[in-house]
């Protein structure tokens, strides 16, 4: 592919090819490369003395991109804990307690430490994270100093699951560092998002839905200097279709589906989608994909409440291959269906998947320079969404006047509906919105004047409920979803 690209550049602009020092047609291309890759989500065994503590530890690990499987000494015997740690798919063990330990876990800690120590001694390749006051038992868990074992895992000591603000954040950061390889694509997207927020001077929220995990990053100008800290989470449950989808996941996708399916058939389709994620991308496969994407975004939001921004971000970036097959306006709608935050946001798609590679640039200044240079081409503008909450039902909700590039559009506002105003990519306009009754649009009021940017979907005026409300009956729910979607998806019935 790179060779073909070089051929095109040499053929169309030899001077540019020379300036870029492109190799000759038969020469080897040895240009600088940025490499970002997402790997399979590793599994973490979470072990604690009590179920309550295990759940706290699991919550911290869930936001660090691990797929967790937990066990606690109050519900499983030592045999069960040993079997879990010896399971072949486990890559690391997190064992922890409160700091100070809670009364119900204190009597079990020493025995638990011995069980874990014996099990990990049989799997020297495992990384072990000892958290909270469990570190007092570290002498039991430390591995004897043997040299010459290349595959030997590390023993790390971390804070308790309840430590930090928000609670669990320091442990989450430690676990993410342990999980992520230096070229980890998702960590790089977080870094690029932060730099981009600074470069564009915008509050940005990036949502990525991937094959094996999802990502959410909320960044404000000035965050770029802080390479770590609250503001991002990588969630295994945010994968488009997690492995072995349970009833809750299947029902979540069914809830967004516009096609009538029973749970079992849908589960079969989802398993096949996971096995061949780029296959079956047209026809009702495309609709299924968007339903699964909505459900995945919903799961990511549900698992990352601490990241919820105070108001709608200026820019929402969608990332991940799942968005590649649907028309731009349909992608905007899918995101607006789930991100029900009153306000005005621009939506864009990381269509060339450049956020990851650019995020691997170590030097902050160099990264900033590159993102500034590429800012206009980096993201595909999907459009702007004006989402108002508290619009009263009735015939007329108010009036919209859009002024931009010598053209003016006017529209009567329709309560509970979706309306589109044509606004091509690259155009910026001013939208003057006058509501009949006070609504919430960032602030509460009746008159607003906001700047909106164009995109593939233009300006989407969303006066539906916040959060969305659906009919009880499944068929009516599907009809409603289909009606919203068909208005923004050209050729959906083909």
């Amino acid at each position, binding site marked *: 592919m790179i060779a073909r690209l070089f051929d095109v550049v040499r053929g169309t602009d030899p001077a540019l090819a020379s300036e870029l020092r492109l190799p000759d047609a038969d020469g080897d291309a040895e240009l600088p490369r940025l490499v970002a890759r997402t790997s399979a989500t590793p599994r973490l065994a979470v072990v604690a003395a009590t179920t309550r503590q295990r759940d706290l530890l699991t919550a911290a690990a869930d936001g660090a991109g691990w797929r967790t499987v937990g066990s606690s000494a109050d519900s499983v015997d030592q045999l069960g804990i040993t079997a879990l740690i*010896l399971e072949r798919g486990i890559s690391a063990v997190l064992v922890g307690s409160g700091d100070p330990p809670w009364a119900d876990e204190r009597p079990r800690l*020493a025995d638990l430490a011995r069980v874990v120590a014996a099990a990990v001694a049989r799997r020297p390749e495992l990384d072990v994270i000892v958290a909270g006051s469990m570190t007092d038992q570290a002498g039991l868990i430390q591995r004897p100093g043997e040299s010459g074992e290349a595959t030997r895992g590390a023993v790390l000591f971390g804070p308790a699951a309840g430590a930090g603000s928000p609670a669990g954040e320091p442990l989450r950061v430690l676990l993410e560092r342990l999980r992520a390889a230096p070229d980890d694509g998702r960590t790089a997207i977080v870094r690029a998002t932060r730099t981009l927020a600074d470069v564009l001077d915008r509050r940005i929220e990036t949502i990525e839905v991937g094959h094996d995990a999802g990502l959410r990053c909320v960044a404000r100008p000035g965050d770029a200097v802080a390479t770590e800290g609250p503001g991002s989470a990588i969630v295994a449950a945010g994968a488009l279709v997690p492995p072995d989808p349970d009833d809750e996941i299947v029902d979540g996708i069914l809830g967004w589906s516009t096609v009538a399916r029973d749970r*079992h058939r849908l589960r079969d389709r989802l398993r096949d989608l996971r096995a061949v994620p780029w296959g079956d*991308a047209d026809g009702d496969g495309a609709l299924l994909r968007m339903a699964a994407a909505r459900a995945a975004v919903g799961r990511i939001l549900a698992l990352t409440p601490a990241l919820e921004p105070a108001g709608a971000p200026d820019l929402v970036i969608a990332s991940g291959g799942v968005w590649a097959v649907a028309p731009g306006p349909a992608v905007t709608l899918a995101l607006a269906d789930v991100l029900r935050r009153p306000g005005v946001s621009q939506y864009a798609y990381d269509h060339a998947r450049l956020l990851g590679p650019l995020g691997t640039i170590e030097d902050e200044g160099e990264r900033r320079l590159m993102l500034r240079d590429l800012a206009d081409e980096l993201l595909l503008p999907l459009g702007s969404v004006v989402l108002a909450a508290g619009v009263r039902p009735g015939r007329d909700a108010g009036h919209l006047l859009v002024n931009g590039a010598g053209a003016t559009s006017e529209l009567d506002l329709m309560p509970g509906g979706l309306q589109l105003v044509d606004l091509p990519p690259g155009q910026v306009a001013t939208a003057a919105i006058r509501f009949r009754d006070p609504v919430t649009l960032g602030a509460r009021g009746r008159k607003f004047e906001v700047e909106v940017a164009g995109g593939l979907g233009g300006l989407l005026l969303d006066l539906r409920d916040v959060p969305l409300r659906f009919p009880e009956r499944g068929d009516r729910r599907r009809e409603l979803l289909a009606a919203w979607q068909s208005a923004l*998806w050209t050729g959906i019935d083909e």
Partner: protein
Amino acid sequence: MTASPSIAAGSGLEVVALRALVRPAPLVWLPLAPGDRPRVTPGQSVLAGALLAERVRDALIATVPADAMAPGTGPGDWWADDGRRHGIRRTRADVAEGELLYRADGEWRLATGARPEQLEAPAAGIVREVRPGSGISLEIAGAGIPGVAAIGGPARGRLDVVGGADGDLRSGSLDVARSGAIVVAGSRIDAEALTKARAMGVRGIVVAGVASRDLRDIAASEARQRASLHRLPPFAILVLEGHVRQPIASPVFDLLLGLAGQEVAIVGDPPILLVDLSAEILPIPPPDRVRVRRGPLAGREGRWIGLAGRRRFGAGVYLEGARVDLGEDRPISVPLADLERFG
């Protein structure tokens, strides 16, 4: 051993996903639980059916004084009672050996219990790794036909091709004559036929697709069987294509037909059918043979014509397409990602 059909340069076929018909010398993992006793060592050659381990049923924890252990004993080692008392306290009178779990307060806790079930080698090979309580890694001397999912097993038997590549296996097609066989069921098998197959002593099913609900039910049933006193022999299902209905790919089906009557085995990690394959029966499909693996045309096979570029498909979606001759009046466009070729 794998066939590598040559591809005409510039045809674009090289961008189509390649599906390996067979995998030579696959490395399979046979899981163990704490308390299971491995009976092989790394580097050891084994024949099909050789004892690899004894599996414990209802493992429990027993306590043994540390001074009953030989020096240097550690977690995962096997302990057997040497007949001296050592002040042993046991939760059952017949506990005399087990796998050491951990040491606490001058005593060792060990996993023990009756071991009525034997884990046998599904095929001949070399033991590469033995991890007590975790599993045994075995490098198979033959080859394997990969699938996408498997449950149960490992199970071994003679291969019996009952229907066609796109047929359904109904319960009426199964009788005791197929006891001990691994049955190729074609496109689909329902829950009733699965249950009957198991009751008839069939060792395994190879099928293009099974509903995930049926797989889950059989997995639960298999787990109950393992916990029962009177066990049936191991049973396994290998899914070759996916969960949505479609026929077995014709090169794979041809391969299975060529192997009919031979001893084969199903293992779950990775999901694969282990076979003793000679080059003569390895089908070499034409290099331009492609198969639609997903979408409304899933299961159809045809001849590669060439890349079609970015095209509009169902629901107004634009995708990279390919032109394929599926035996109809004229070639049709298929999304490139829906296709696979064989190698």
